[in-house]
């Protein structure tokens, strides 16, 4: 299971020459960071990295919208609440390939193709996120909210200062998943960005695979650069990720 990861790391520090040797060497003869340097000097990985970080930031705005919508569904009674919530859940059934083409046409009409906003918008909110926030926030007691209302707090102030701090466990899970999804985002950048200026890391890596098909050392360095941050985040916060499956109601 870990073999592909280990092979990726070992190969990313080998030289071009060594990687094309037959038979392949298992342990690198000489460690070199040249491949990583090439990614940033001769290729546009710095630009891809910047775009990816911007997409991740947009995703966090999306997470906030999910949270506030989840709160709306959890703690208010209003007309059409149930039917609207079922509508939200129904969107989970829609396969990405069905929305791919019309969303492209819509963004094209709005002149948002080839912009980072256009890349980020389609994936910003998600039914699953709204659902998880709603599930968690329904467990918060009504008395706290009522007490705050009697003290004259505005509704948004209640959400910001009371609900969000209580929701820290679900925020942690969602935050990690949002980061991973944003960092890995591939389909929308692939479709919406025609200009390399707007490529994210994963699209840039796919391009690298096409352009430098036989330079496996460079490809492995690019992959390692994408995978290592996620593995670090995962190892540091694994407790929350694995707990997340219990929060999500799979028990």
């Amino acid at each position: 299971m870990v073999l592909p990861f280990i092979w990726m790391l070992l190969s990313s520090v080998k030289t071009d020459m060594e990687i094309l040797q037959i038979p392949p060497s298992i342990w690198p003869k000489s460690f070199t960071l040249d491949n990583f340097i090439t990614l940033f000097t001769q290729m546009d990985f710095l630009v891809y990295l910047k775009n990816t970080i911007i997409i991740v930031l947009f995703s966090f705005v999306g997470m906030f919208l999910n949270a506030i919508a989840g709160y709306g569904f959890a703690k208010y009674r209003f007309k059409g609440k149930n039917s609207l919530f079922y509508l939200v859940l129904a969107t989970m059934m829609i396969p990405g390939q069905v929305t791919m083409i019309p969303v492209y046409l819509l963004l094209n009409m709005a002149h948002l193709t080839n912009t980072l906003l256009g890349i980020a918008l389609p994936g910003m909110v998600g039914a699953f996120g709204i659902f998880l926030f709603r599930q968690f926030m329904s467990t918060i007691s009504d008395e706290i909210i009522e007490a705050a209302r009697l003290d004259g707090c505005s509704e948004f102030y209640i959400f910001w200062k009371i609900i969000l701090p209580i929701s820290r466990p679900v925020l942690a899970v969602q935050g990690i998943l949002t980061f991973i999804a944003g960092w890995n985002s591939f389909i929308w950048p692939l479709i919406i960005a025609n200009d390399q200026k707007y490529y994210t890391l994963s699209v840039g890596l796919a391009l690298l695979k096409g352009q430098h098909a036989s330079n496996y050392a460079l490809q492995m360095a690019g992959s390692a650069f994408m995978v290592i941050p996620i593995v670090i985040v995962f190892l540091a916060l694994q407790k929350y990720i694995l707990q997340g499956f219990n929060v999500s109601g799979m028990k």
Partner: protein
Amino acid sequence: MKTFLNKNSPYLFITPALFLLLIFSIVPIIISLIISFTDINITGLADWSKIHFIGLSNYVNLFNDPAFLQSIGNSIFYVVIGVPFVIACSMGIALLINFGDSWIFRLFRLIFYAPSITNVVAVAVVWNYLYNPQFGLLNYMLQFVHLGPVPWLQDPFIAKISLIILALWRAIGVNMLIFLAALQGIPKAYYEAAQIDGANSWQRLTKITIPMLRFATFFVTVTTLIGWLQFFEEPLVMTSGGPLNSTNSIALFIYQNGFQFSKFGYAAAGSMILFVIIIVVTLIQFRGQRKQQDNQM
């Protein structure tokens, strides 16, 4: 003023998210359905007067398009081979990991989960290198047992299997966690009672554990099935559907027609067919599940 705010705040809270969902999930379905009856392409995009309603032509052409029929066949292959493997492997690994709680079991849980959060492109690039017939590690290792060389991505049949292996590697993690959560929910008393009655460990597995995992298995089956029907990134990055269209999936066919050939109407018709297939398959699953429950009552 206060009551006004209170009454409207739930709407204010849900509107932004709902608006985005509406624009990017619900409206697209309607658009997709409409344009699937038109010949919209790259010229129609710039000038709407060039778009014509052509009725069911797109659908008729799809079913006469050998590439589309082949992609349906490939998707069925992925489902028939992939789904049982994912269920068997993730359930088997969950059962093994559930045996203990020491650090080694926790380590394995991490190891098996790790592939599912890593970037699909990075993973595909790494596996592409592993699969390389000349320099790849897999063929090199097979040499030691006097096998190979295997044309992992060059042979039309083996290429499909190679993609399934990669996707299986990625899929195990999440499903294993679902099975683990379900396993921990089985009351210990059942096993104690079975032990007193003299049931051996095989009987305990087949008569208690697996039946108790029924709901988790159902959940994993439905999500995995839908996932395989939408199989997309792996063939796109690894093989672009080749060799000879043999790894092309329905989803990739839609992408190619939409964004490489700019035949938006044709691709939209393909996506509607995929949507119908997914709905029908899911409904059959739910019906089967209900029937099974009725029989047990």
